[in-house]
């Protein structure tokens, strides 16, 4: 599965990383070699092997439906780049 230059640019766009054509070329070679290494996986027969998502065979614990958090807006917004009237501001979103 040889990686294409365009696929790096596409991944960069999906991941919202500003990447010039030149940058993409720089990453392409490394990522290709990493994926070549990863491709060793294909040599292994995994028919009938269930995927393992978590190392422990545990199941989800559930939380009681209780409100345990109080308003800490000012506290949390201290680390925010731009807020006004309690809202986080971003460049205008066009719908």
């Amino acid at each position, binding site marked *: 599965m040889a990686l294409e230059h365009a696929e790096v640019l*596409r991944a960069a*766009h*999906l991941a*919202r990383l500003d990447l010039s054509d030149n940058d993409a070329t720089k990453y392409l070679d490394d990522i290709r070699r990493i994926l070549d290494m990863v491709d060793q996986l294909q040599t292994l027969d995994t028919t009938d092997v269930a995927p393992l*998502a*978590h190392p422990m065979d*545990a*199941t*989800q*614990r*559930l*939380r*009681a*439906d*209780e*409100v*345990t*958090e109080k*308003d*800490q*807006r000012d506290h*949390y*917004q201290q680390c925010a780049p*731009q807020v*006004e*009237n*309690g*809202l*986080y*501001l*971003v*460049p*205008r*979103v*066009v*719908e």
Partner: protein
Amino acid sequence: MQWETVIGLEVHVQLATQSKIFSGSSTAFGAEPNTQANAVDLGLPGVLPVLNEQAVAMALQFGLGINAEIPEVSVFDRKNYFYPDLPKGYQTSQMYEPIVGRGEVEILLDDGSARVIRVHHAHLEEDAGKSLHEDFHGMTGIDLNRAGTPLLEIVSEPDMRSAKEAVAYLRAIHSIVTYLGISDGNMAEGSMRCDVNVSVRPKGQEEFGTRAEIKNVNSFRFVERAIAYEVERQVELIEDGGKVVQETRLYDPEADETRSMRTKEEANDYRYFPCPDLLPVMVDSAYIDHLRESLPELPAEKRARFQDELGLSAYDAGVLSSSRAMAEYFERTKDVCGDAKQAANWVQGELSGALNRDALDISDSPINADQLGELIKRVIDNTINGKAAKQVFQALWNGEGGGENNSADAIIEARGLKQVTDTGAIDAMVEQVIADSPAQVAQYRDAEPDKRGKMIGYFVGQVMKASRGTANPQQVNTLLKEKLDALC
């Protein structure tokens, strides 16, 4: 060419939990921006989700309510995309192993017939925040209070064939979730939102046409109108030689049209994968049994019982079971007065009329079910006649019985509306009316015997007037007929 419409619905229902699906923040509606957005909801570095038990229970109750398959294990996945109202850059949802499997919802059409719409699955997910586009120096404000509110997304099969069916399905879902008490179903506040998939195909064709998805339609009426517009658009497009594009559209209620959402972006690639911060959710059969036992009677069951046990018509049963509040009101009324048909008539007649007139919900009715039941009881036991009953109803509605004593009996008593059944008194009034109406009596006598039945109405009216409406109309009728016929 004859066209057939194919519709599938994705209904998002906000579950009525106290706290969010993965955090202990409140889900209350209408708080100041970001005052209910805490570390987990904001997606701060290092935070982790913990699943709300009640959200799981509510989803399962819905599953039981539509007789769905309930898989033993369900899994949360991440749906990855960037949007400012999505704090973590992914939405935690269920893509591959949803909590509720295949089920069925029965819908009721206007002609009283029923149809079954298949539900493909329902899954749990977290709601996003809100973008506020008022002007902040040309910027958008983000409020994350809603982020993390539990949603149940109910995905139907493309089984609906008209806008009316789609609305009936949406109503059925609405009544199920409100019956179950798992959502307030408030569409104006966004507690229930709907994405509509619409396509058209030549009648008789197997294969589906290309569909458009109309996002976020949030009223019954808009669903109907959005579909109507979209079907017309697609048919015109195809008939003009064009092709429907698979895309997302928005319904604009003001212009009453759907519009393509500008897609500068290439098709989304959400890169779903199992959320590593959450473990598989196991549902054991004992828990399911426990939930099933505590399930209230649902609309379809109620409707069937109203027909089978109470002898109501399909239409009446449908109307009276359409909401939990309506059904509960009706059943209480019926229990108090002891007559299902009378109760059904009154609830759908006088009561619904008055509620509509004053734009009130049944839960805000000035007359409660006990009061109405007592009133109907007085009709049934002949204490008052129908005409007086309507007067009593109006007086009850206006609270004229006064405070806690605003009862039918108090009004009947105060206004002397008790029906006169004393034969002697009625007899005297009948004699008087006959004596006072020689011309009408003459006409009656001269008429063909089969025309006389209609003519008796005049005399009845006079007697009722003389009794100020309190005479028993049947008694009056019988006596008049007897006495007039004796004169012939």
